[in-house]
Protein backbone atom coordinates (compact mmCIF):
# COMPACT_ATOMS: atom_id res chain seq x y z
CA UNK A 1 0.00 0.00 0.00
CA UNK A 2 1.41 3.37 -0.99
CA UNK A 3 1.29 6.64 0.75
CA UNK A 4 -2.28 7.87 0.83
CA UNK A 5 -2.89 11.53 0.08
CA UNK A 6 -4.50 13.21 3.09
CA UNK A 7 -6.17 16.59 2.64
CA UNK A 8 -7.73 18.94 5.18
CA UNK A 9 -10.72 20.93 3.93
CA UNK A 10 -11.48 23.83 6.22
CA UNK A 11 -13.66 26.89 6.33
CA UNK A 12 -12.06 29.79 8.14
CA UNK A 13 -14.16 32.78 9.07
CA UNK A 14 -17.75 33.45 9.81
CA UNK A 15 -19.70 32.68 6.65
CA UNK A 16 -21.93 29.64 6.74
CA UNK A 17 -21.70 28.57 3.11
CA UNK A 18 -20.00 25.21 2.97
CA UNK A 19 -21.56 23.76 -0.15
CA UNK A 20 -18.49 24.41 -2.26
CA UNK A 21 -16.19 22.97 0.40
CA UNK A 22 -18.32 19.84 0.60
CA UNK A 23 -18.37 19.39 -3.17
CA UNK A 24 -14.58 19.60 -3.26
CA UNK A 25 -14.26 17.26 -0.25
CA UNK A 26 -16.42 14.72 -1.99
CA UNK A 27 -14.55 14.97 -5.28
CA UNK A 28 -11.24 14.37 -3.51
CA UNK A 29 -12.71 11.43 -1.65
CA UNK A 30 -13.92 9.96 -4.93
CA UNK A 31 -10.40 10.41 -6.28
CA UNK A 32 -9.18 8.04 -3.55
CA UNK A 33 -7.89 10.61 -1.08
CA UNK A 34 -8.55 10.77 2.66
CA UNK A 35 -10.30 14.04 3.31
CA UNK A 36 -10.55 15.46 6.80
CA UNK A 37 -13.43 17.88 7.01
CA UNK A 38 -13.45 20.24 9.97
CA UNK A 39 -16.69 22.13 9.51
CA UNK A 40 -17.57 25.79 9.69
CA UNK A 41 -16.13 28.76 11.56
CA UNK A 42 -12.60 27.52 12.04
CA UNK A 43 -9.88 29.82 13.31
CA UNK A 44 -6.49 29.70 11.56
CA UNK A 45 -5.09 28.20 14.79
CA UNK A 46 -7.60 25.38 14.71
CA UNK A 47 -6.90 24.71 11.04
CA UNK A 48 -3.14 24.52 11.48
CA UNK A 49 -3.39 22.36 14.59
CA UNK A 50 -5.74 19.95 12.78
CA UNK A 51 -3.43 19.84 9.74
CA UNK A 52 -0.47 18.91 11.94
CA UNK A 53 -2.30 16.26 13.96
CA UNK A 54 -3.82 14.72 10.85
CA UNK A 55 -0.49 14.86 8.99
CA UNK A 56 -2.06 16.16 5.79
CA UNK A 57 -0.03 17.20 2.74
CA UNK A 58 -2.58 19.73 1.52
CA UNK A 59 -4.92 22.22 3.18
CA UNK A 60 -7.85 23.49 1.12
CA UNK A 61 -9.35 26.72 2.47
CA UNK A 62 -12.71 28.04 1.43
CA UNK A 63 -14.08 31.44 2.31
CA UNK A 64 -17.00 33.32 0.88
CA UNK A 65 -17.13 36.11 3.43
CA UNK A 66 -14.49 38.33 1.88
CA UNK A 67 -12.10 37.73 4.76
CA UNK A 68 -9.74 35.63 2.66
CA UNK A 69 -7.04 38.31 2.43
CA UNK A 70 -6.75 38.27 6.17
CA UNK A 71 -7.39 34.64 7.10
CA UNK A 72 -5.61 32.67 4.36
CA UNK A 73 -2.17 34.25 4.94
CA UNK A 74 -2.59 33.72 8.69
CA UNK A 75 -2.79 29.99 8.02
CA UNK A 76 0.41 30.14 5.97
CA UNK A 77 2.21 32.11 8.71
CA UNK A 78 1.10 29.74 11.45
CA UNK A 79 2.30 26.75 9.44
CA UNK A 80 5.71 28.39 9.22
CA UNK A 81 5.75 29.05 12.96
CA UNK A 82 5.09 25.35 13.51
CA UNK A 83 7.78 24.22 11.05
CA UNK A 84 5.06 22.86 8.81
CA UNK A 85 5.60 25.05 5.75
CA UNK A 86 5.87 21.91 3.62
CA UNK A 87 2.08 21.61 3.72
CA UNK A 88 0.59 22.98 0.48
CA UNK A 89 -2.16 25.57 1.01
CA UNK A 90 -4.87 26.02 -1.62
CA UNK A 91 -7.68 28.57 -1.60
CA UNK A 92 -11.15 28.64 -3.03
CA UNK A 93 -14.24 30.79 -2.96
CA UNK A 94 -15.22 34.09 -4.44
CA UNK A 95 -11.82 35.68 -4.78
CA UNK A 96 -11.12 38.54 -7.22
CA UNK A 97 -8.08 38.12 -9.51
CA UNK A 98 -6.12 40.88 -7.79
CA UNK A 99 -6.64 39.21 -4.44
CA UNK A 100 -5.63 35.85 -5.86
CA UNK A 101 -2.35 37.38 -6.98
CA UNK A 102 -1.76 38.85 -3.52
CA UNK A 103 -2.54 35.53 -1.86
CA UNK A 104 -0.03 33.75 -4.06
CA UNK A 105 2.56 36.30 -2.99
CA UNK A 106 1.62 35.51 0.61
CA UNK A 107 2.43 31.84 0.10
CA UNK A 108 -0.74 30.15 -1.10
CA UNK A 109 0.10 27.62 -3.80
CA UNK A 110 -2.99 28.20 -5.92
CA UNK A 111 -6.42 29.80 -5.90
CA UNK A 112 -9.33 27.99 -7.52
CA UNK A 113 -12.18 30.33 -8.43
CA UNK A 114 -15.89 29.58 -8.74
CA UNK A 115 -16.72 27.11 -11.50
CA UNK A 116 -13.38 25.30 -11.38
CA UNK A 117 -13.98 21.68 -12.45
CA UNK A 118 -13.21 19.53 -9.43
CA UNK A 119 -11.06 17.29 -11.64
CA UNK A 120 -8.66 20.21 -12.05
CA UNK A 121 -8.19 20.37 -8.27
CA UNK A 122 -7.69 16.61 -8.06
CA UNK A 123 -5.04 16.70 -10.77
CA UNK A 124 -3.30 19.69 -9.26
CA UNK A 125 -3.00 17.93 -5.91
CA UNK A 126 -1.80 14.68 -7.43
CA UNK A 127 0.89 16.37 -9.50
CA UNK A 128 2.17 18.61 -6.76
CA UNK A 129 2.15 16.05 -3.99
CA UNK A 130 4.24 13.73 -6.12
CA UNK A 131 6.70 16.54 -6.75
CA UNK A 132 6.94 17.23 -3.03
CA UNK A 133 7.72 13.67 -2.05
CA UNK A 134 10.07 13.24 -4.98
CA UNK A 135 8.38 10.11 -6.26
Amino acid at each position, binding site marked *: MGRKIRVLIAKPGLDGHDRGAKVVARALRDAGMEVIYTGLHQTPEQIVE*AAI*QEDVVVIGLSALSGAHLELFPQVVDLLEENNAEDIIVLGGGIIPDDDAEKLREEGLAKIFGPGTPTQEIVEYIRENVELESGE
Partner: protein
Amino acid sequence: MEIVSELLSGDRRALARLISMVENLEPGAKKALSELYSYTGNAHVIGITGPPGSGKSTVVDKLTLELLDEGKSVGIIAVDPTSPFTGGALLGDRVRMNEVSLDEDVFIRSMGTRGHLGGLATKTRDVIKILDAFGKDFILVETVGAGQSEVEVVKAAHTTIIVEVPGLGDDIQAIKAGILEIGDIFIVNKADRDGADNTARELDTMLGMNQEEKDWEPPILKTVAKEGKNIDELNDAISSHLSHLKETGGFEELKKKQIRDEFLDIVREKIYSYTMERTAEGKIDEIVENVMNSEIDPYSAAEDFLEPLEEDRKD
Protein backbone atom coordinates in the same frame (compact mmCIF):
# COMPACT_ATOMS: atom_id res chain seq x y z
CA MET B 1 15.19 5.78 15.77
CA GLU B 2 15.10 9.54 15.54
CA ILE B 3 11.34 9.74 15.08
CA VAL B 4 10.84 7.69 18.24
CA SER B 5 13.01 9.92 20.41
CA GLU B 6 11.33 13.02 18.95
CA LEU B 7 7.95 11.57 19.76
CA LEU B 8 8.99 10.63 23.29
CA SER B 9 10.20 14.18 23.82
CA GLY B 10 6.70 15.44 23.03
CA ASP B 11 7.00 16.45 19.37
CA ARG B 12 3.47 16.50 17.90
CA ARG B 13 4.69 16.42 14.31
CA ALA B 14 6.76 13.31 14.96
CA LEU B 15 3.70 11.73 16.54
CA ALA B 16 1.53 12.60 13.51
CA ARG B 17 4.20 11.39 11.06
CA LEU B 18 4.69 8.08 12.79
CA ILE B 19 0.96 7.42 12.69
CA SER B 20 1.03 7.99 8.90
CA MET B 21 4.06 5.73 8.53
CA VAL B 22 2.24 2.96 10.34
CA GLU B 23 -0.95 3.49 8.35
CA ASN B 24 0.92 3.44 5.04
CA LEU B 25 3.04 0.41 6.01
CA GLU B 26 6.13 2.50 5.34
CA PRO B 27 9.60 1.10 5.96
CA GLY B 28 10.69 1.70 9.53
CA ALA B 29 7.17 1.65 10.97
CA LYS B 30 7.55 -1.79 12.53
CA LYS B 31 10.93 -0.95 14.04
CA ALA B 32 9.53 2.25 15.53
CA LEU B 33 6.62 0.35 17.07
CA SER B 34 8.99 -2.19 18.61
CA GLU B 35 11.08 0.59 20.10
CA LEU B 36 7.99 2.31 21.49
CA TYR B 37 6.45 -0.79 22.99
CA SER B 38 8.16 -0.55 26.36
CA TYR B 39 6.70 2.93 26.83
CA THR B 40 3.12 1.74 26.43
CA GLY B 41 0.63 0.33 28.92
CA ASN B 42 -0.12 3.45 30.94
CA ALA B 43 -3.21 4.80 29.19
CA HIS B 44 -6.79 3.89 29.94
CA VAL B 45 -8.26 3.00 26.54
CA ILE B 46 -11.98 3.63 26.12
CA GLY B 47 -13.94 2.42 23.10
CA ILE B 48 -17.06 4.28 22.04
CA THR B 49 -19.36 2.54 19.62
CA GLY B 50 -22.97 2.67 18.47
CA PRO B 51 -25.11 3.26 15.40
CA PRO B 52 -24.44 6.14 12.97
CA GLY B 53 -25.93 9.38 14.22
CA SER B 54 -26.21 8.27 17.83
CA GLY B 55 -23.89 11.05 18.94
CA LYS B 56 -20.60 9.22 19.46
CA SER B 57 -18.45 12.19 18.41
CA THR B 58 -20.36 14.55 20.67
CA VAL B 59 -20.02 12.13 23.58
CA VAL B 60 -16.28 11.99 22.89
CA ASP B 61 -16.10 15.80 22.78
CA LYS B 62 -17.90 16.28 26.11
CA LEU B 63 -16.18 13.39 27.85
CA THR B 64 -12.85 14.90 26.83
CA LEU B 65 -13.87 18.19 28.47
CA GLU B 66 -14.57 16.31 31.71
CA LEU B 67 -11.22 14.55 31.59
CA LEU B 68 -9.37 17.79 30.85
CA ASP B 69 -11.07 19.36 33.87
CA GLU B 70 -9.46 16.66 35.97
CA GLY B 71 -6.09 17.56 34.54
CA LYS B 72 -5.82 14.50 32.31
CA SER B 73 -4.47 14.42 28.78
CA VAL B 74 -6.51 12.79 26.04
CA GLY B 75 -5.80 11.14 22.70
CA ILE B 76 -8.73 10.67 20.37
CA ILE B 77 -8.91 8.25 17.45
CA ALA B 78 -11.96 8.73 15.26
CA VAL B 79 -12.59 6.05 12.66
CA ASP B 80 -14.75 6.59 9.58
CA PRO B 81 -15.34 4.25 6.65
CA THR B 82 -13.14 4.09 3.57
CA SER B 83 -14.91 3.68 0.23
CA PRO B 84 -14.47 0.11 -0.99
CA PHE B 85 -14.54 1.40 -4.57
CA THR B 86 -12.18 4.35 -4.64
CA GLY B 87 -10.15 3.89 -1.46
CA GLY B 88 -11.05 7.46 -0.52
CA ALA B 89 -12.66 8.55 2.72
CA LEU B 90 -14.38 11.56 4.16
CA LEU B 91 -13.34 11.84 7.79
CA GLY B 92 -15.77 14.20 9.46
CA ASP B 93 -15.71 13.50 13.18
CA ARG B 94 -13.68 16.60 13.94
CA VAL B 95 -16.71 18.72 13.10
CA ARG B 96 -18.17 17.80 16.51
CA MET B 97 -14.92 18.10 18.41
CA ASN B 98 -14.25 21.80 18.06
CA GLU B 99 -14.55 22.49 21.75
CA VAL B 100 -11.43 20.51 22.55
CA SER B 101 -9.46 20.67 19.31
CA LEU B 102 -7.17 23.48 20.43
CA ASP B 103 -6.39 22.23 23.90
CA GLU B 104 -2.72 21.35 24.14
CA ASP B 105 -3.51 18.23 26.14
CA VAL B 106 -5.63 16.84 23.31
CA PHE B 107 -4.49 15.09 20.15
CA ILE B 108 -7.12 14.02 17.64
CA ARG B 109 -6.46 11.70 14.75
CA SER B 110 -9.00 10.63 12.13
CA MET B 111 -8.55 7.25 10.47
CA GLY B 112 -10.17 5.67 7.41
CA THR B 113 -10.92 1.97 7.81
CA ARG B 114 -8.90 1.21 4.64
CA GLY B 115 -10.74 -2.00 3.90
CA HIS B 116 -10.83 -3.27 7.46
CA LEU B 117 -14.15 -4.56 8.79
CA GLY B 118 -15.19 -4.77 12.40
CA GLY B 119 -15.52 -1.09 13.25
CA LEU B 120 -11.87 -0.11 13.56
CA ALA B 121 -9.19 0.75 10.99
CA THR B 122 -6.45 -1.74 10.13
CA LYS B 123 -3.88 0.01 12.28
CA THR B 124 -6.01 1.39 15.10
CA ARG B 125 -4.35 -0.80 17.72
CA ASP B 126 -0.93 0.45 16.67
CA VAL B 127 -2.08 4.07 16.77
CA ILE B 128 -3.39 3.50 20.30
CA LYS B 129 0.09 2.36 21.30
CA ILE B 130 1.69 5.39 19.72
CA LEU B 131 -0.60 7.77 21.63
CA ASP B 132 -0.03 5.74 24.79
CA ALA B 133 3.75 6.04 24.44
CA PHE B 134 3.34 9.75 23.73
CA GLY B 135 1.97 9.95 27.28
CA LYS B 136 -1.78 10.37 26.91
CA ASP B 137 -3.64 9.40 30.11
CA PHE B 138 -6.81 8.48 28.26
CA ILE B 139 -7.30 7.29 24.71
CA LEU B 140 -10.81 7.49 23.33
CA VAL B 141 -11.46 5.32 20.29
CA GLU B 142 -14.59 6.15 18.34
CA THR B 143 -15.58 3.36 15.95
CA VAL B 144 -17.34 3.73 12.62
CA GLY B 145 -21.09 3.85 12.95
CA ALA B 146 -21.66 0.32 14.14
CA GLY B 147 -24.58 -1.95 13.49
CA GLN B 148 -24.60 -5.39 15.00
CA SER B 149 -21.33 -7.13 14.44
CA GLU B 150 -18.79 -4.32 14.68
CA VAL B 151 -17.43 -5.59 17.95
CA GLU B 152 -13.72 -5.44 17.31
CA VAL B 153 -13.30 -2.44 19.59
CA VAL B 154 -13.13 -4.85 22.54
CA LYS B 155 -9.85 -6.11 21.18
CA ALA B 156 -8.41 -2.69 21.81
CA ALA B 157 -10.30 -1.06 24.70
CA HIS B 158 -10.28 -1.58 28.46
CA THR B 159 -13.74 -0.06 28.80
CA THR B 160 -16.33 -0.21 26.04
CA ILE B 161 -19.21 2.26 25.90
CA ILE B 162 -22.25 1.55 23.75
CA VAL B 163 -24.15 4.64 22.65
CA GLU B 164 -27.79 3.99 21.83
CA VAL B 165 -30.58 6.42 21.00
CA PRO B 166 -34.35 6.22 21.51
CA GLY B 167 -36.46 4.75 18.75
CA LEU B 168 -34.16 2.43 16.88
CA GLY B 169 -35.71 -0.95 16.24
CA ASP B 170 -37.46 -3.25 18.65
CA ASP B 171 -36.16 -5.38 21.45
CA ILE B 172 -35.43 -8.38 19.24
CA GLN B 173 -32.59 -6.35 17.71
CA ALA B 174 -31.05 -6.24 21.12
CA ILE B 175 -31.17 -9.99 21.74
CA LYS B 176 -29.14 -10.82 18.66
CA ALA B 177 -25.59 -11.69 19.44
CA GLY B 178 -23.03 -8.97 19.10
CA ILE B 179 -22.92 -5.41 20.17
CA LEU B 180 -24.93 -5.75 23.38
CA GLU B 181 -22.56 -8.37 24.66
CA ILE B 182 -19.53 -6.15 24.57
CA GLY B 183 -20.74 -3.12 26.50
CA ASP B 184 -19.28 -2.24 29.89
CA ILE B 185 -21.34 0.94 30.04
CA PHE B 186 -24.49 1.74 28.08
CA ILE B 187 -25.77 5.19 27.38
CA VAL B 188 -29.08 6.22 25.92
CA ASN B 189 -28.07 9.47 24.29
CA LYS B 190 -30.44 12.19 23.06
CA ALA B 191 -32.44 11.29 26.15
CA ASP B 192 -34.51 14.46 25.81
CA ARG B 193 -36.35 12.70 23.00
CA ASP B 194 -39.50 10.62 23.38
CA GLY B 195 -38.93 7.00 24.16
CA ALA B 196 -35.68 7.34 26.08
CA ASP B 197 -37.12 5.64 29.17
CA ASN B 198 -38.43 2.79 27.04
CA THR B 199 -35.08 2.30 25.37
CA ALA B 200 -33.31 2.28 28.73
CA ARG B 201 -35.85 -0.20 30.10
CA GLU B 202 -35.50 -2.48 27.08
CA LEU B 203 -31.74 -2.43 27.41
CA ASP B 204 -32.07 -3.22 31.10
CA THR B 205 -34.36 -6.18 30.37
CA MET B 206 -32.06 -7.53 27.68
CA LEU B 207 -28.99 -7.24 29.85
CA GLY B 208 -30.87 -8.82 32.74
CA MET B 209 -31.72 -11.82 30.55
CA ASN B 210 -28.07 -12.66 30.36
CA GLN B 211 -27.91 -15.69 32.63
CA GLU B 212 -24.19 -15.80 32.80
CA GLU B 213 -22.81 -14.91 36.21
CA LYS B 214 -21.21 -11.50 35.82
CA ASP B 215 -19.32 -9.57 38.43
CA TRP B 216 -19.79 -6.25 36.64
CA GLU B 217 -23.30 -4.95 36.06
CA PRO B 218 -23.13 -2.58 33.09
CA PRO B 219 -24.80 0.68 34.10
CA ILE B 220 -27.33 2.27 31.74
CA LEU B 221 -27.12 6.05 31.72
CA LYS B 222 -29.31 8.61 30.04
CA THR B 223 -27.37 11.47 28.48
CA VAL B 224 -27.93 14.52 26.33
CA ALA B 225 -24.38 14.88 25.08
CA LYS B 226 -25.01 18.04 23.10
CA GLU B 227 -25.81 19.84 26.36
CA GLY B 228 -23.22 17.94 28.35
CA LYS B 229 -25.97 16.40 30.45
CA ASN B 230 -24.92 13.42 32.61
CA ILE B 231 -21.47 13.22 31.06
CA ASP B 232 -20.07 13.55 34.59
CA GLU B 233 -21.96 10.38 35.48
CA LEU B 234 -20.44 8.70 32.46
CA ASN B 235 -17.01 9.74 33.63
CA ASP B 236 -17.71 8.30 37.09
CA ALA B 237 -18.90 5.04 35.57
CA ILE B 238 -15.67 4.82 33.55
CA SER B 239 -13.57 5.25 36.70
CA SER B 240 -15.65 2.65 38.54
CA HIS B 241 -15.19 0.20 35.71
CA LEU B 242 -11.44 0.64 35.69
CA SER B 243 -11.24 0.21 39.49
CA HIS B 244 -13.39 -2.87 39.19
CA LEU B 245 -11.08 -4.35 36.55
CA LYS B 246 -8.04 -3.65 38.66
CA GLU B 247 -9.54 -5.00 41.89
CA THR B 248 -10.87 -8.23 40.43
CA GLY B 249 -7.87 -9.12 38.33
CA GLY B 250 -10.00 -8.58 35.24
CA PHE B 251 -7.51 -6.07 33.94
CA GLU B 252 -4.69 -8.62 33.75
CA GLU B 253 -7.01 -11.14 32.17
CA LEU B 254 -8.17 -8.65 29.55
CA LYS B 255 -4.63 -7.58 28.83
CA LYS B 256 -3.54 -11.17 28.36
CA LYS B 257 -6.38 -11.84 25.95
CA GLN B 258 -5.63 -8.70 23.96
CA ILE B 259 -1.94 -9.53 23.70
CA ARG B 260 -2.78 -13.03 22.50
CA ASP B 261 -5.25 -11.71 19.90
CA GLU B 262 -2.81 -9.15 18.68
CA PHE B 263 0.08 -11.60 18.46
CA LEU B 264 -2.01 -14.03 16.44
CA ASP B 265 -3.14 -11.21 14.14
CA ILE B 266 0.46 -10.21 13.55
CA VAL B 267 1.39 -13.82 12.75
CA ARG B 268 -1.56 -14.12 10.36
CA GLU B 269 -0.51 -10.95 8.59
CA LYS B 270 3.11 -12.13 8.42
CA ILE B 271 2.18 -15.48 6.91
CA TYR B 272 0.07 -13.72 4.31
CA SER B 273 2.76 -11.27 3.28
CA TYR B 274 5.42 -14.01 3.40
CA THR B 275 3.34 -16.04 0.96
CA MET B 276 2.54 -13.11 -1.31
CA GLU B 277 6.17 -12.02 -1.49
CA ARG B 278 7.01 -15.47 -2.85
CA THR B 279 4.23 -15.48 -5.41
CA ALA B 280 5.08 -14.81 -9.04
CA GLU B 281 3.29 -11.93 -10.70
CA GLY B 282 0.17 -13.05 -12.48
CA LYS B 283 -0.08 -16.26 -10.48
CA ILE B 284 -3.22 -15.15 -8.65
CA ASP B 285 -4.88 -14.06 -11.91
CA GLU B 286 -4.06 -17.46 -13.36
CA ILE B 287 -5.70 -19.26 -10.44
CA VAL B 288 -8.79 -17.05 -10.69
CA GLU B 289 -9.06 -17.91 -14.40
CA ASN B 290 -8.80 -21.60 -13.65
CA VAL B 291 -11.53 -21.46 -11.03
CA MET B 292 -13.68 -19.35 -13.38
CA ASN B 293 -13.32 -22.00 -16.10
CA SER B 294 -14.25 -24.74 -13.63
CA GLU B 295 -10.86 -26.37 -14.09
CA ILE B 296 -10.35 -26.44 -10.35
CA ASP B 297 -12.29 -25.55 -7.22
CA PRO B 298 -10.98 -22.76 -4.95
CA TYR B 299 -10.27 -25.11 -2.03
CA SER B 300 -7.95 -27.37 -4.01
CA ALA B 301 -6.45 -24.34 -5.70
CA ALA B 302 -5.50 -22.93 -2.30
CA GLU B 303 -3.96 -26.26 -1.28
CA ASP B 304 -1.85 -26.31 -4.45
CA PHE B 305 -0.97 -22.67 -4.00
CA LEU B 306 0.40 -23.24 -0.51
CA GLU B 307 2.27 -26.41 -1.41
CA PRO B 308 5.65 -24.66 -1.84
CA LEU B 309 5.30 -23.32 1.72
CA GLU B 310 5.09 -26.88 2.92
CA GLU B 311 8.26 -27.64 0.97
CA ASP B 312 10.01 -24.72 2.68
CA ARG B 313 9.04 -26.16 6.02
CA LYS B 314 10.57 -29.55 5.26
CA ASP B 315 13.91 -28.03 4.30
